[in-house]
């Protein structure tokens, strides 16, 4: 038993090592190859369909394998998908686009690395847009790792567009106030004074009053617009309940797809100007701002995965109906 396990592990390890050291990098499929792969995948699903209809349900592990393949292969393909901008994302963008140069935007990063695949692309596009349009960004986080995600996003933006390194001055164009523990109570106290919650920034450890971008920024009344990247609690719900309801902050939100349905009632009640939900929300935002990044790349994998899930549901149900017809 243990022996078998060892052999399997060894084989997997060797496969990865070959991939690491022997395969040419990077791998890219040409269009023809991509189309062939898609056809093969379709055939595979057809085969599963036949099996299921015959009453032979495929095991969990096969389903897992299929999902893995569907998520992995699109990374090597080169298709671009047409994308339409939803009104929710347009709302978020319009709020940002209506700002004049020099306006101050508060960005709260309320997520951790686990949710980064969904939210990081939005954050990067957001920074790029603000940097290009002279919009000042004040970053903070209600999650311990949130503020660091903001630094990573800025770093990524600068890596991609090196001119930012000269144009964008820390402290003048953006500032990172860091994380403060206390969930929604941080927002409550920020309603009185930002400085009380964030006496110093975290990148250069400067005192609040010495940071140019924070001059005249005392509380929410000095903020022109705000955006909240949220993966749970505390997040959009808390921001809306405190900052929007009590202090009339203008706010848009970028949510993980799980969070997004809960934010819709707020969107409908106009407590949020806009909402970017999950990776496709991020891709739309990248498109409308013209700052393309990872969300657009990831979207093909995402679409494939959705198709796999939908096809699996359809197969399962088709077989289910066949059985029921037969039983009658």
């Amino acid at each position, binding site marked *: 038993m243990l022996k078998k396990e060892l052999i399997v592990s060894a084989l997997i390890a060797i496969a990865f090592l070959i991939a690491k050291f022997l395969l040419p990098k990077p791998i890219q499929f040409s269009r023809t190859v991509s189309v062939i792969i898609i056809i093969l995948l379709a055939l595979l699903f057809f085969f599963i369909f036949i099996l299921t209809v015959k009453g032979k349900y495929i095991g969990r592990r096969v389903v897992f394998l299929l999902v893995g393949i569907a998520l992995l292969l699109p990374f090597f393909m080169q298709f671009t998908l047409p994308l339409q901008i939803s009104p929710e994302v347009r709302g978020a963008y319009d709020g940002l686009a209506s700002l004049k140069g020099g306006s101050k935007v508060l960005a709260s990063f309320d997520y951790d690395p686990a949710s980064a695949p969904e939210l990081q692309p939005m954050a990067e596009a957001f920074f790029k847009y603000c940097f290009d349009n002279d919009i000042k960004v004040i970053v903070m986080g209600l999650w311990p790792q949130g503020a660091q995600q903001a630094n990573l996003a800025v770093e990524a933006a600068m890596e991609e567009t090196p001119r930012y390194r000269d144009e964008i001055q820390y402290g003048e164009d953006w500032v990172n106030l860091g994380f403060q523990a206390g969930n929604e109570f941080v927002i409550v106290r920020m309603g009185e004074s930002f400085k009380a919650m964030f006496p110093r920034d975290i990148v250069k450890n400067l005192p609040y009053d010495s940071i140019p971008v924070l001059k005249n920024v005392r509380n929410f*009344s000095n903020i022109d617009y705000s955006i909240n990247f949220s993966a749970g609690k505390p997040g959009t719900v808390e921001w809306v309940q405190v900052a929007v309801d009590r202090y009339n902050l203008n706010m848009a939100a970028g949510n993980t797809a799980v969070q997004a349905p809960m934010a819709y009632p707020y969107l409908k009640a106009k407590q949020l100007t806009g909402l970017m939900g999950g990776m496709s929300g991020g891709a739309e935002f990248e498109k409308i701002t013209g700052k393309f990044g990872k969300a657009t790349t990831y979207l093909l994998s995402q679409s494939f995965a959705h198709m796999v899930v939908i096809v699996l549901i359809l197969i399962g149900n088709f077989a289910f109906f066949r059985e029921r017809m037969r039983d009658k």
Partner: protein
Amino acid sequence: MTVTVLRLLFTLLVSVLLFFLFPHNLTAQDDTSPDSLIVPVEEVDTAFMAQQTPQAPFNIVAKDRPNDAGEAIIVSWDLSPDDYSGGKVKEYLILRADSPEGPFEELGNTTQGLSEFSDNQAERGKQYYYKIAALNYARVNGGRTWHITSESAVAGPVHAYAQWFNTGRLNIFIGIFILSGAITYFIFASKSGKKFYIRKIAGIEEVENAVGRATEMGRSIYYVPGINDMDDVQTLASINILGRVARIAAGNDTRIDVPVSRSMVMVTAREIVKESYSKVGRPDAFQEDQVRYLTDDQFGYAAAIDGLFVREKPAAIFLIGAFFAESLIMAETGNSIGAIQIAGTAMPSQLPFFVAACDYTLIGEEMFAASAYLSREPKLLGSIKGQDVGKALFLVAIIIGVLLETFGVTLFGMEFSDIFRAR
């Protein structure tokens, strides 16, 4: 009519007076930025500057912000006549001082068109004086070439003070009073022997069957009380349900395991399970490590629970409490080992997964009702009846409110939905 005209005339008079009484400050910002586009101040011609001077706002009123702890003063003013789109007023500056003579310090600014500012930095009980200055400037490339202000009359003295009752929350007070009253009334009514019908809730009915099945198979039960700490009412509700489930399990001589992710939940759950064992007369059967702490971390906890499930293969699994993304990780693993699963949460986003992967799911309010229901104690069942009265009142309010709003009927000048305004 006449009053309005008189008021208008008066404000006009005051504004004209103010305009002449208070000199317009001509200041240039000290701008050391090397940007060549900025026109040096000396080059701006004084006549041009005089032309650019906005008229000051008037009618400055400063008063305590009501319904707070005495932490803010609201300053409002009438807009300067030059305040229109493209007019000479770009911003208003809010100035504050401790005495009418000054010195006034700049508190903050609002954009053109706004006529109110909340000074959230007022110290309770301290006297303040306010002035509002209209500001005009030209802006080049992020810097200002020149700027000019004209200040209003001084308003004050005013101080912020705290209130003892938030009148804005009177509606909430009445609401919670009625609701708690209804619940308490029915608790006492059922205590004195009144009987109420309570419908069957599938998930709760199945609790005993699930425990029974575990007993038959000679395997254990796992009870997972969610990942939130004791400061979540869902956890409290879950802990109460645990008490009932543990009692059934102890009565059946079936082992119940409670892996938890919070230390305080561990302490509480231990008390409860221990108590359940002694209630059925088997205090010795309880072992402390039936309730064990794993880790505070969401996915660390999920990983450990997955491991426990596949290795211990419990026959019944209860997932009741506050769950987040880990819900499906646990529910699917539980499903793969063939356990009967009863789930309950008030997290709307996790409910679909429980519905899909578990045998029974307690949806939101059902979970809160479960402990009362399982206890079979009349007074607790009474509280469920009280809840229903609250629901009925809400339903009536929705019908009346929607009808009134649709036909545009207002009550005493306010809309019906204002009754439900939370401040």
